[in-house]
């Protein structure tokens, strides 16, 4: 729905790409001089991946006269989406092999592999599937659960963990669409957590107003922390990657300092932990007190809808996308690029701030120096997996939430180490960053496809190689 308006990644050469030996005349005006090898080298993180040398119109089998609905389909079928899904599957498969490799039964059966190979293979199969079934049961649906409520408890846990991942991921994705690498979600979450927690435990306000203030304080905290980066970038040209990374440290050590002061430390405690937030400052639990799932998840959905609208339907999003896609053309068209930079970093910070609020007012209910865990960094992966689209990020956030929630159950049930989930996550990133590798593994390289179609359409061809 919301993704129809984003820039289409076409198969045509990028206007600003560098000339190469391969197609010297293939400027933007020369569609015929285009070249498949070239296309595959232009991939960038976040999904500007070009699937093949064939023009878009020729790829999607239908006349591109249909304005809106064809783009989603086309994207899924021409590479981007499908490669992402294949990357996940491939990572799961390799993860399965790794699980099998560390399994005791597999090790035992391998000693008599040549005598009875079926034993070995069966052991591999059961080790991998067993772990994944446990992962699924720990993250989505547990048939042995206590009643319907117990059976769906894992799903609720998944969504709870996904909440900060989604909102922080949206912050990263939004900034990326404007051409900025926001590595600072971690720091933005922490600053939001500090402000939201303080409002939550220090102020005594009526129900409703208190939570609203907590929410606003958190968003403002993240927005200011992100916006500062934008200001530095716009005014001085400081690179946002360096600045955000440093800001992460500043935020973390600032938090540790605060937790050591009377203002934040829980009275009578020696450990760095804040008082518990007032009940009036907490997110209500959506399905009652037996689940941890809180209002933050609904806010994450709202944030996704908002970002989707912002990017695709608002003038601000138009500016962001223009600045991200071609800052020079944006400047020439009168778009205020510095202002867009500051604004997008502020919004990105605010979204990450929402994740901070979800942590202190929803999941944790206190402020510790682990308030952000690794959500800020995982958010980068989530945005990458979601190809920087709002709903893609949403889906990726849920997937990663499921991994985290299910990993515990997996370890309890099958003894597979939790770390295997990290390996799978890392493999996903690796494969997404190398689309040609994934395409090569699944035999869908544009080069091969080209040869295949060419072979089909012509008979008795004297190819140059055969001459």
């Amino acid at each position, binding site marked *: 729905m919301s993704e129809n308006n984003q820039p289409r990644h076409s198969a045509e050469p990028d206007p600003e790409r560098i000339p190469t030996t391969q197609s010297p005349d293939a400027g*933007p*005006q020369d569609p015929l001089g285009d070249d498949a090898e070239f296309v595959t080298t232009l991939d960038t993180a976040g999904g500007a991946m070009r699937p093949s040398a064939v023009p*878009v119109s020729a790829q999607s089998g239908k006349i591109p006269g249909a304005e809106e609905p064809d783009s989603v389909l086309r994207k899924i079928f021409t590479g981007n989406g499908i490669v992402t899904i294949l990357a996940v599957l491939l990572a799961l498969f390799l993860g399965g092999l790794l699980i099998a490799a560390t399994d005791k039964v597999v090790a035992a059966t391998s000693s008599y592999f040549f005598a009875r190979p079926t034993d070995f293979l069966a052991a591999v199969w059961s080790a991998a599937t067993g772990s994944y079934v446990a992962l699924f049961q720990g993250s989505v649906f547990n048939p042995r659960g206590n009643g319907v409520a117990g059976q769906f408890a894992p799903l609720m846990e998944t969504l709870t963990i996904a909440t900060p991942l989604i909102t922080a991921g949206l912050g990263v994705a939004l900034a990326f669409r404007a051409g900025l690498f926001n590595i600072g979600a971690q720091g933005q979450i922490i600053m939001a957590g500090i402000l939201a927690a303080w409002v939550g435990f220090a102020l005594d306000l009526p129900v409703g107003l208190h939570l609203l203030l907590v929410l606003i304080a958190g968003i403002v905290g993240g927005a200011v922390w992100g916006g500062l980066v934008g200001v530095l970038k716009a005014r001085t040209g400081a690179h946002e990657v360096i600045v955000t990374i440093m800001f992460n440290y500043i935020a973390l050590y600032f938090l540790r300092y605060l937790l050591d002061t009377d203002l934040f430390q829980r009275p009578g405690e020696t450990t760095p932990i804040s008082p518990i937030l007032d009940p009036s400052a907490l997110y209500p639990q959506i399905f009652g007190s037996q689940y941890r799932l809180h209002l933050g998840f609904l806010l994450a959905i709202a944030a996704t809808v908002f970002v989707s609208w912002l990017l695709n339907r608002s003038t601000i999003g138009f500016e962001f996308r223009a600045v991200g896609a071609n800052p020079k053309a944006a400047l020439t068209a009168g778009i205020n690029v510095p202002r867009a930079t500051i604004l997008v970093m502020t919004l990105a910070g605010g979204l990450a701030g929402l994740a901070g609020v979800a942590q202190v007012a929803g999941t944790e209910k206190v402020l510790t120096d682990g308030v952000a865990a690794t959500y800020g960094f995982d958010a980068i992966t989530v945005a990458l997996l979601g190809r920087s689209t709002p709903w893609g990020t949403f889906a990726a956030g849920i997937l990663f939430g499921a991994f985290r929630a299910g990993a515990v159950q997996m370890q309890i049930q099958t003894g597979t180490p939790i770390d295997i989930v990290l390996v799978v996550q890392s493999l996903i990133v690796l494969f997404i960053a190398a689309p040609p590798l994934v395409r090569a593994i699944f035999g869908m390289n544009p080069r091969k496809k080209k040869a295949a179609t060419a072979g089909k359409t012509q008979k008795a061809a004297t190819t140059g190689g055969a001459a």
Partner: protein
Amino acid sequence: MVRVLKLELKGITKRFGSLVANDHIDVVVEPGQIHCLLGENGAGKSTLMNVLYGLYEPTEGQILIDDKPVTFRGPGDAMAAGIGMVHQHFMLVPVFTVAENVALGAEATKAGGFLNLDDTRRKIKEISDRYGFDVDPDAMVEDLPVGVQQRVEIIKALVRDAKVLILDEPTAVLTPQDTDELLDIMRQLKSHGTSIVFISHKLREVKAVSDTITVIRRGKVVGSADPGASTTELASLMVGRAVNLTLDKAPAKPQETTFQVKDLTVIAPSGQHVVDGISFDIARGEILAVAGVQGNGQTELTEAILGLHERAQGSILLDGEELLGRSVKDVLNAGVGFVPEDRSVDGLIGTFSIAENLILDRYDKAPFAKGISMSPATVLENAKTRIEEFDVRTPSGSLAAGTLSGGNQQKVVMARELSRPLRLFIASQPTRGVDVGSIEFLHKRIVAERDHGTPVMIVSTELDEVIELADRIAVLYKGKLVGIVPAGTGRDVLGLMMAGLSPEEALADAARKQPATDPGGAAAADAAAGAAAGPAPTKESNQAPAAHPVQESSSGAVGDDHE
């Protein structure tokens, strides 16, 4: 004398998926000939040459050398067979010397693995002397003017014993003088027995130098032509329909002067005055064309008017309103239409849809936006109207602008800028890299805007375009205004002005040289022929032979020309 070599391409077909770039192309390059491949941008010339050079494998067809079929698995094979290629964008390492560049890929070493360039130096000297190239083997490539860099590329091919030289749009980056020199070099190479495949869409050059012309259109050979054919004939063969090369333009009816530039100076970060105290004005209903060799301050002049330069001094008045010091958005909102010189960098966002590109500077105005909420339906509706009005060839406005051909991209930019009420219209290089058919259309639109009563400023490095469109011509040289002359000023006078001579000097000089000039130089003869046949469509301007000083300022053109 090098061994001559006959080259034949037989039934070459190259497909990219369902796209047929070359469709059963037959070309025979006879030994010692200059064979021209003429075709519009995107006709498939370069694909064909990449097949010949071993960069692409043909889907069908054969390459025959001296009637024997050969297969090239890469440029190495092609080079070994005696085929050399000079790419449009040079493949040189800027921080290497000429000798190092030439040796690159086939370096000889002394004992101990040290580079031995003596042999290469000697060969460069030899070739340079034979053809009068005047290239110093130890000069750093980045210090050389574009024309000389191109000669280095040619030497690179000749050192590797190329019998057939492919020149891919070699004149796109050259100044008029460099172009003439290149054409001379081509003739010399021919007389020494090297065959040349010359790829171009510039009719004037093609006519001046070719022995045989093969015209390619949409991946097919549509015929061959005699170099004696008229430009109109060649153009219509190339485009596939009759082309009107002369613009029907009523005389200007200038009204009151509404746009004034006074003492405009733009200072580059290096401290150089790239625009130096320029003053001019444009009346409503008048086209002022700014001529000059690339890199003489034109870019900065237009950018300063648009508000893209912070370090600009002087005064820019539109209807008495000061534009200098205002933001780009303010200037655009004041009614300035701006077509930037490099559409792919400044004019369009390639990954955005055509519809979005058509509102790039009005995305936040009614009816496209209410508050901050945009209306995609209106945006698409607008695109439909503009696409129809400006004859943009595309199946849909929701396709990415990057998929369009150069001419259609330019139409999109022009459509955007001309579709609102303007008080000033500025177009930089309005037809660079645009096919012949579109040029005609774009020129008509510019004149229509003038007749609508808008002051129009055209910046072009192509003299023919300047001559065709201008009501008055301003010539820039090294950031200074050399002078403003009326339309109808001879191209030789303009050429001299582009080299820095004042209008008076230029007129006197041209008058003196005219009878004395030996018209035997084919370029000069061609210039005369071209002028007689009416201005050719896409062409380099020929300058009077005396205009040498321009050479030094020409290096700025390298990176700027993307076509």
